[in-house]
C-alpha cells in the first residue's frame, strides 16, 4: 500500500500525460474545427492537472479560468460565427505537409538528444519557497510594556499568496505592462473586428443599425460645421 502511495504521482503523470499528448494530436488531426477546439479544451485541463501536481495551484487555476474558460469560448464563438462549410473531399493539409512532418521529426529528434535521461540531475532544492510567505505581524512588546513591536510569521502551503507576493513586489512593472498590453490587445481586436456598413449591406441591415449610421453622420457633419 505504501509503495502504491509513493508511486501515485508517477501513475497520475503517465495517465494525464498520455491523455494530453493524445488529445493534442487529435487537435491537429480532426477535420472539423469544433472537434479540434474540444480536444484543445481536454489538453488544457490535463495541463492544469499537471500544474497542480507541481505545487503551482494558482497557475493551474488561472489555466482553467483563462484558457479553458476564456480562450476556448472565444475560439468556439468564432468557429460558430464564420460557419465555414467544408466539402467532404476538401483538402485539410496545406501544400507543404511533407516538409511539416520533416520539421516535426527533426525538432523532436533535437528534443530527444537534448533531454537524454541523466542530463539533468534532480536537485534537492528547497521546494517550500514555492508556497511560503513571511508576514510582518504587529505584537505587543514584551520588553517594553505598552509599546508595540514586529514579528516575522512564516505561513506554509499558500501558493497563491506566494505568487501574489512575487507579482506585486519583484514583478510589479511587468505586471503593469501586461495590463497595458491587454488594453491594447482589446482595442486592437475591436478595431480590426468591427464591420463597416457597405452600400450592399445597407439594404439588408436592420433599422437600428442604419439609424446609428445616420446619427453618426449627422454628428460628424455638425462637428465639421462647427469647425
Amino acid at each position: 500500500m505504501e509503495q502504491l502511495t509513493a508511486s501515485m504521482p508517477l501513475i497520475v503523470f503517465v495517465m494525464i500525460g498520455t491523455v494530453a499528448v493524445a488529445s493534442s494530436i487529435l487537435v491537429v488531426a480532426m477535420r472539423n474545427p469544433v472537434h479540434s477546439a474540444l480536444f484543445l479544451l481536454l489538453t488544457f485541463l490535463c495541463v492544469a492537472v499537471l500544474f497542480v501536481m507541481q505545487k503551482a495551484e494558482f497557475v493551474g487555476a488561472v489555466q482553467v479560468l483563462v484558457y479553458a474558460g476564456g480562450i476556448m469560448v472565444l475560439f468556439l464563438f468564432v468557429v460558430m460565427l464564420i460557419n465555414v462549410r467544408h466539402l467532404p473531399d476538401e483538402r485539410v493539409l496545406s501544400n507543404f505537409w511533407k516538409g511539416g512532418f520533416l520539421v516535426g521529426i527533426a525538432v523532436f529528434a533535437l528534443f530527444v538528444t537534448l533531454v537524454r535521461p541523466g542530463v539533468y540531475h534532480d536537485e534537492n532544492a528547497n521546494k517550500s519557497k514555492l508556497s511560503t510567505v513571511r508576514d510582518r505581524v504587529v505584537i505587543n512588546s514584551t520588553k517594553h510594556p505598552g509599546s508595540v513591536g514586529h514579528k516575522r510569521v512564516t505561513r506554509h502551503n499558500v501558493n497563491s499568496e506566494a505568487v501574489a507576493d512575487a507579482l506585486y513586489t519583484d514583478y510589479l512593472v511587468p505586471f503593469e505592462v501586461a495590463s497595458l498590453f491587454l488594453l491594447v490587445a482589446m482595442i486592437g481586436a475591436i478595431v480590426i473586428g468591427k464591420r463597416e456598413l457597405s452600400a450592399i449591406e445597407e439594404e439588408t441591415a436592420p433599422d437600428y443599425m442604419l439609424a446609428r449610421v445616420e446619427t453618426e453622420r449627422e454628428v460628424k457633419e455638425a462637428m465639421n460645421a462647427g469647425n
Partner: protein
Amino acid sequence: MPAIDAWLMLSGTIFTVGLVGVIIRRNMITVLMCIELMLNAVNINLVAFSHRLGSLEGQVFTIFIITVAAGEAAVGLAIIIQLYRLRSSINVDEARELNG
C-alpha cells in the same frame, strides 16, 4: 514524482505536435489552436523548472505567457473574422496578396 526529463519530454512532444499542426493545417483557426498548444508546452517547461529549482520565477512567467496568449488569441481571431469577410475563406494558402 517523475524526474525533470519526463516533464521536459512531455512538453517537447506537445510542442512538436503544435509545430507540425501550424505547418501542415490549412484552416486558420486550427493553426491558431496549434499556437496555443505550443505556448502551453512552454508553460509546462517553465512550471517544471520552477518546481525543480524551488523558485517562483517560472510560475510568474507562466502567468505572463497566459496573458500574452489571451491577447494573441483575441487579435488573431479578429484578423480571421476580417479575412473571412474579405475572401469568404479561412484557408492559409489562399491569403497570398502579400507574397512578393
